[in-house]
């Protein structure tokens, strides 16, 4: 157990170095892919790899993931419609789908499912707005809200606790 914790700690330490609003926003935008699209999909492995390898905020990605999960479920009917239209109604795209479906490994990505395809396209469309909104939000938070929040008694209590020390491990 201790070895596993140490491994986790070393991984987190290796990932923690940047924390600009841009990095947090990029993390949130990438993490949103994990929540908006079905998690157990091949493309999400690439997203995880991107979160790990690019200098983006990992806690930001986790935040983006958690925040996007309910949105993903709520938007599923829309994703289904969009994906269905792309798969079944867009005749010019049919050769591309046929090629992807019959290509090893690519077909494992389940792009031939309307929800997977629709949600992925949805995330691609939303990624830039999410990034911009998150960057603005983080900047505003750091400039106005954060200095006041750290003065709250409850926050001071939490920051003095062991739980907060654990959280710091994951802070960029």
């Amino acid at each position, binding site marked *: 157990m201790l070895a596993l914790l140490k491994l986790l700690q070393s991984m987190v330490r290796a990932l923690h170095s940047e924390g600009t609003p841009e990095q947090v926003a990029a993390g949130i935008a990438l993490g949103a892919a994990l929540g908006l699209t079905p998690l157990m999909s091949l493309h999400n492995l690439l997203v995880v790899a991107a979160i*790990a390898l690019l200098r983006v905020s990992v806690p930001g990605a986790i935040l983006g993931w958690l925040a996007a999960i309910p949105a993903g479920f709520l938007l599923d009917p829309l994703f*289904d419609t969009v994906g269905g239209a792309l798969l079944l109604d867009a005749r010019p795209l049919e050769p591309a789908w046929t090629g992807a*479906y019959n290509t090893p490994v690519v077909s494992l990505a389940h792009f031939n499912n309307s929800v*997977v395809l629709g949600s992925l396209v949805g995330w691609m469309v939303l990624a830039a707005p999410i990034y911009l909104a998150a960057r603005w939000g983080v900047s505003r938070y750091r400039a106005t809200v954060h200095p006041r929040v750290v003065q709250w008694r409850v926050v001071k209590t939490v920051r003095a606790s062991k739980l907060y020390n654990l959280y710091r491990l994951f802070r960029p």
Partner: protein
Amino acid sequence: MARRRVFRWRAIVPLLVFLTLLVLVWLLLLDRLAERGIEAAATHLVGARVDLAEADVRLRQGAVILRGLEVTNPDEPMTNLFEAEEIVADLRVLPLLEQKLALDTVAVRGLEFGTERETSGAVVERSPESARVARQVSAWADALRFPSFSLEGLGQAVDVGALSPESLQTVARAEALVEQVDAVRSGWDRTLRSLDPQPTIDSARALVTQLRQADLGRLGPVGVARLVSSTRTTINSVGELQQRVESLDDMARSDVAELQGALRGLSAAREADYAYARSLLQLPSLEAPDISPALFGEAAVGWIKPVLYWLGMAEQFLPPGLQPRRFAPSGRTRRAGTTVTFPKEGERPGFLLEHGEASLELGGEGIEAGRYLAVVSGLTSAPSLYGKPLRFLIERTGAAVGPGDIGVDVLLDHVTTPVRDSVQARLGGIELSALELPSLGARLLPGQGTMSLSLERVGDALAGRWVWRSARVTWERMGSGSGEGEREAAQVGSGAWAEDFLWRTVSAIRDVEVAVELSGTVDGPSLAVRSNVGDAVAQSLRRELGREIARAEERVRAQVDALVGDGVARARAGVRELQGTLLEDIGGPLGALEGVRQELEREVERLGRRLPGGIRIP
């Protein structure tokens, strides 16, 4: 200014560790995942629960071993369609990277059919495909109407007073036809008023008179040419009007033909009303073709329903052609959506079983004891890609006791359209299930007998024959029966009389054959049921009740005729009158137009002949 670094190279090792852990977890859970996946996919396909005790996936050896497979019969959730102790499949690994399953060979051990389940295998929500097929088959079965068969009530006075005009479709149809005639008549009145050919006819006639009285000397060549030109203009306008009237004539004839067709439909409606009125009186038919469906119709539907269900499922899951196919995936946490497969020429199908074999041995000393072999080849989700039809065979390879008269040969050719399916099955010397025949008040215990099915399907057309036969049947009375004294005292038409009469008739029959003929389309085939039991009952009925039933039928027909007669007569008169009016209103002007046009042409020609010195009319 320091260059901002984009990559976090130190994360490569933790990422690789994470991916390795992921692969290890996947490998550890592979058997469980395969088990769940097979259960979900097969449940989706069958439309009832499929349970698997264990799956053992050996990727390096390219093999999958399944143990304890139970496939529920969708029609009987407490019974398994079949159960297999162990299935060993040779698997091609590379197609798995394309999410495709290709099995070279499959061997099945410990196969048993029709075993009982401990828990129900019904599913709360069937796959859309199987639910659609089940709905279609149920709708077909529900829509079938077999004549009822009951002798009770024969002795009652024939009461035709219960019939009302509202309950007869002929009355409603005749009223609708009268309204239709009125609507057509007013439409034509408006059309003919707006057309009004009379002024044109009158003007043309005046011109004919003017031509006849024309003085050529006084008119001179120029005047004659002007007169001829004006006459030709009139001939053209008369000709155009004539064409319009002719097209109206065609339309009128078509309207009249439609109304006459509706009039003929009243005869069919009247026949249906006779049948309806007759059914209210519960008079039994004396014709064997009516009695057999009444006796065995429900049982026949029960036999045919699974056949139609599996034909429908084969159509759903083994479609011809290379068009994208959609289906609803199962077992997803998120919305399932629609999964579309895109078959491509030269590529592998999504699922392919090249060759599968199952051998089974039934022990004991029964007639069914022996060794059997089941072989399936070319089972694929894309027959057009595989290029060969699906073949399924069951044969008895060794009989311990009794005749080896068991064989099933199924050929589903969905490689191209139209699809061609053929099913030949013969199960001889098997224990047939008892049939309850409430309308006869008896239970038929067939013992050992023969069931055979011969079915051919080409495109949507279906033709088949199911024969159920036993030569040593016994009968069991369902009611209590009446004693000798009671039987003599029983009135014709009373329950006791009917029960005894039918029992006397059928209890002597030892050899029973029921033949079910299927024809028509796959979506709604027609069913014809014939049986020697129906023949026997019909003969007995004719002997004992023929005259009485015929008299009652006559009264029913007379009552229906009285109720529908006025309406039909009004409809017939309306159609006849409209036909006469239209012929007169259109035919009259048409004849007048033709006549005046010919007269004008004749006058022009005569005018030409009267001109002196070879002057020609331009």
